[in-house]
């Protein structure tokens, strides 16, 4: 049984006031709040287990290693990967994409090869590929999106070709909420021998993910958008691909043997985890996954869909307000502009009402260009939001109207 009020008590920050009003946190697409289970897991680690991992014979080091590796197993099961060797801890989705661009990309691309991304990508899934193209002479191609924020039908088919080596596609758009047909894209890409990186940063907290069923080659996400800590994220890669890729960074932990003449590398996943990792973060992420699975992603998704439907209905009835991103089946976010009021001003006024939303380009400037807006206001929803909070958002938007358009 999904009980939002009971759930909210698991998130201490939701008790706080902002400018003398109860916090209405509608910015979970930027980062989610953290439940007690996650806060306690990090605390427990530092209070009772703290030691460096993989390198001590003493009890604490062993226990810390077990906890860290236990978190890897949780991640593996959470995204349905076959092997723990395929789960690499990174700082976040951004670092995971950069790892692939660097390690896989420099080895695999020749001048004239093509990388295909979409117009709705986050900068994290644009810029690393641009850098890679600069370094290798590969060409970046962009799948266009339509007026509602979906990939233009047929465009993927038309653009995937014999020179396509990699397709980088977001599963859920952070600026628009669009859900992309990634399984179809993977099938099309594999037909021409291209690999696919799926950016799951906005997807993992909203829908169950199974990387084996998707058959994607790489999958990335960040812990902090999944009710976990900042500074920890995940790269999933198919083992055969990861085996062939050179290390990304050099240092401790990623080696088997070092001499000044020759260094041999550690096995997967450690080959890609140079240096002391964010041990507490990984353990916190493991706790977040346990927490989310205990609640049930299906129940969370249903709840969030209700919130989004309620918000969309009110937005449509609100004169002067235009939603940006209305693709069928979208999830999680309501991006909008208001006639006569810049999003930045909306953000400031809402903040004084205790309502936290994001305003700006959402690290997706090409999306802003596509819809010819300088920025949007974006409310995003998580498991702990309520219908009452959606109503508070629209009450606050009425205040914006009063102040600006009276």
């Amino acid at each position: 049984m999904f009980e939002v009020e009971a759930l909210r008590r698991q998130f201490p920050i939701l008790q706080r006031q902002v400018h003398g009003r109860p916090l209405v946190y509608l910015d979970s697409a930027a980062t989610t709040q953290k439940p007690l289970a996650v806060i306690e897991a990090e605390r427990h680690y530092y209070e009772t287990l703290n030691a460096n991992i993989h390198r001590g014979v003493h009890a604490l080091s062993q226990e810390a290693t077990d906890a860290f590796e236990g978190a890897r197993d949780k991640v593996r099961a959470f995204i349905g990967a076959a092997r723990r060797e395929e789960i690499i801890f990174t700082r976040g989705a951004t670092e995971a994409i950069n790892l692939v661009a660097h390690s896989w990309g420099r080895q695999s691309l020749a001048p004239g090869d093509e990388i295909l991304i979409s117009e709705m990508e986050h900068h994290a899934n644009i810029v690393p590929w641009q850098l890679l193209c600069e370094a290798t002479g590969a060409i970046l191609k962009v799948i266009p999106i339509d007026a509602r924020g979906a990939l233009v039908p047929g465009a993927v088919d038309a653009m995937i070709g014999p020179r396509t080596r990699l397709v980088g596609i977001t599963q859920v758009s952070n600026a628009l909420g669009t859900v992309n047909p990634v399984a179809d894209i993977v099938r099309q890409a594999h037909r021409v021998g291209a690999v696919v990186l799926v950016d799951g940063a906005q997807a993992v907290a909203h829908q169950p993910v199974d990387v084996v069923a998707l058959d994607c080659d790489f999958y990335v996400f960040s812990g902090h958008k999944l009710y976990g800590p900042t500074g920890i994220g995940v790269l999933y890669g198919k083992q055969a691909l990861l085996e062939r890729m050179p290390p990304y960074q050099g240092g401790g932990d990623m080696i088997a043997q070092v001499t000044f003449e020759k260094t041999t590398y550690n096995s997967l996943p450690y080959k890609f985890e140079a240096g002391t990792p964010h041990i507490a973060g990984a353990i916190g992420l493991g706790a977040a996954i346990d927490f989310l699975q205990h609640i049930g992603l299906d129940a969370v998704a249903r709840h969030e869909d209700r919130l989004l439907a309620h918000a969309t209905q009110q937005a449509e009835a609100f004169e002067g307000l235009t939603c940006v991103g209305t693709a069928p089946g979208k999830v999680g976010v309501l991006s909008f502009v208001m006639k006569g009021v810049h999003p930045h001003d909306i953000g400031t006024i809402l903040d004084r009402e205790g309502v936290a939303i994001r305003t700006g380009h959402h690290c997706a400037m090409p999306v802003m260009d596509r819809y010819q807006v300088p920025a949007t206001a974006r409310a995003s929803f998580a498991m702990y939001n309520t219908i009452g909070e959606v109503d508070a958002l629209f009450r606050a938007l009425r205040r914006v109207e009063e102040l600006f358009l009276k």
Partner: protein
Amino acid sequence: MSDLRDLYQEVIFDHNRHPRNFGPLATANRHADGFNPLCGDRLTLHLRVEDGVIREARFEGAGCAISTASASLMTEALIGKSEAEAAVLFEGFHHMVMGEITSVDLGKLAVLAGVSEFPARVKCATLAWHTLNAALKNASQPVSTE
């Protein structure tokens, strides 16, 4: 709400809705672009400077109410000022929006004093002024608030 009214004074709404000195300037001899990547505000400033005096000032672009009003008010304040006087105004304005005391007489620009209570908006208010600095130096790179 009272502090919101401190930020969004009537004069600011007025300049936001009806920006003064808005548009291109054919006779300009100095230009600069300003950009606030955080919120997507962009503006282009055109100046006609003769013998060290700003004879004309106009701007174009799209931004939030604070940056638009600030640019509009700035162009009004600049016309007829020497470059040295403009620099003094910028310094005084900067002190004001940072919540610091200034002895500079800011005239109408003082309506933006409320910005100091909204740290996230200081860059909106100063974008036009940073762009002015660039225009006076005739910098070719767009200035950014970041």
